[in-house]
């Protein structure tokens, strides 16, 4: 058989997919009887493709996957530096909120104070609790990182007059605690390998 008479790749495809009119389909079938090895290889390949398309599932992931990955790329590629530092901004102070009659007791008013700080990197919630009669304080906190930073990787430094007085670390929930703190003014430094957040001038007083 003359090689030029062999069915072309596109003809083989149309023939396999049943897209040819009967007379042309018969013609391709006849020409295939004496086709060369290259044509047979093409036919085998197309049959394999057909088998694959029939047995293999092919689907797109839910849109939320892409949204998350685009967000992660944006966070991971945020410019630069080797290390970033932010000063936290106080956005909520329970003592600064108007008291609705009867809803907050005098004990609660005196002994527990809640503060929320924000930065570009994380949101930090602090609870300051006074312990009577020792007149000491417990500071508990929780970090909610905005970036894809695991919550258990933060170290928390408590400073007084620029000197470290205590060191802690977050747990799996991003929580940490400092106990038995005397009244005074403190700074808290929250840090990871990528950044550092400073909470300045935290007053512990009755």
């Amino acid at each position, binding site marked *: 058989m003359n090689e030029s008479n062999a069915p072309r790749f596109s003809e083989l495809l149309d023939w396999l997919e049943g897209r040819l009119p009967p007379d042309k389909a018969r013609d391709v079938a006849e020409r295939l009887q004496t086709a060369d090895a290259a044509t047979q290889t093409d036919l085998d390949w197309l049959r394999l*493709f057909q088998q694959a398309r029939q047995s293999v599932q092919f689907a797109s992931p839910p849109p939320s996957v892409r949204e998350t990955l685009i967000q992660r790329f944006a966070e991971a590629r945020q410019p630069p530096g080797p290390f970033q530092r932010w000063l936290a901004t106080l956005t909520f102070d329970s003592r600064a909120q108007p008291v609705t009659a009867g809803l907050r007791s005098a004990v609660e008013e005196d002994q527990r104070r809640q503060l929320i700080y924000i930065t570009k990197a994380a949101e930090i919630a602090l609870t300051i609790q006074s312990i009577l009669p020792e007149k000491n304080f417990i500071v508990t906190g929780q970090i909610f990182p905005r970036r894809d930073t695991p919550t258990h990787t933060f170290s928390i430094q408590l400073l007084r007059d620029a000197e470290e007085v205590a060191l802690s670390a977050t747990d799996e929930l991003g929580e940490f605690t400092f106990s038995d703190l005397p009244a005074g003014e403190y700074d808290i430094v929250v840090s990871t390998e990528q950044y550092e957040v400073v909470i300045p001038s935290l007053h512990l007083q009755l």
Partner: protein
Amino acid sequence: MPETAQNDILQTDRDLIRACCSGDPRAWERLLDKYERLVFSISLNYGLTTDDAADVTQITFTILLQNLNTLPDEIRLSSWLATVARRHTWRLLARNRREAVNPDEDLAGNEALGGIVDDRERQELAEWLYQGLSLLDEHCRQLLLALYFDAEQPSYADVADHMKMPIGSIGPTRARCLEQMRQSLHTAESL
């Protein structure tokens, strides 16, 4: 630079990776366009649920993101992603088997699989297909995906409308794309 010219530049995996490293979000989206379906489908074809396959897809691309700066220039990204996706799929399958009271029931939720999770030939076929599609240019890949792998089985007219192509060119173009896929696979296999 006009957008079309910019798009032309971002054709190869190496270009895409470099553009991602320089912080170009369009490159990352194009990379997801190119491979998210492949990665997701690997897990699906191993029998994971949609939710688990979505988790694996997320993990796989997050690992890619973490490794963008250290990938070698000559990397075959489709194979790299397939390997990572496969590894995490196996982990989830193993965990699901451990946790399921009846492992057969657990995996039978994926009806299209017919409960087959150990079909080696089927997996090889799937990965052969993924690799072939990933070697195509974007236009060909989208055309073949629309014609052969869209669950809604759109007509030529629908595909022509969607891809803004003359309907008469759909048939010949799909043949050219398949021929390109066969040649690309042949070249890749002989390397």
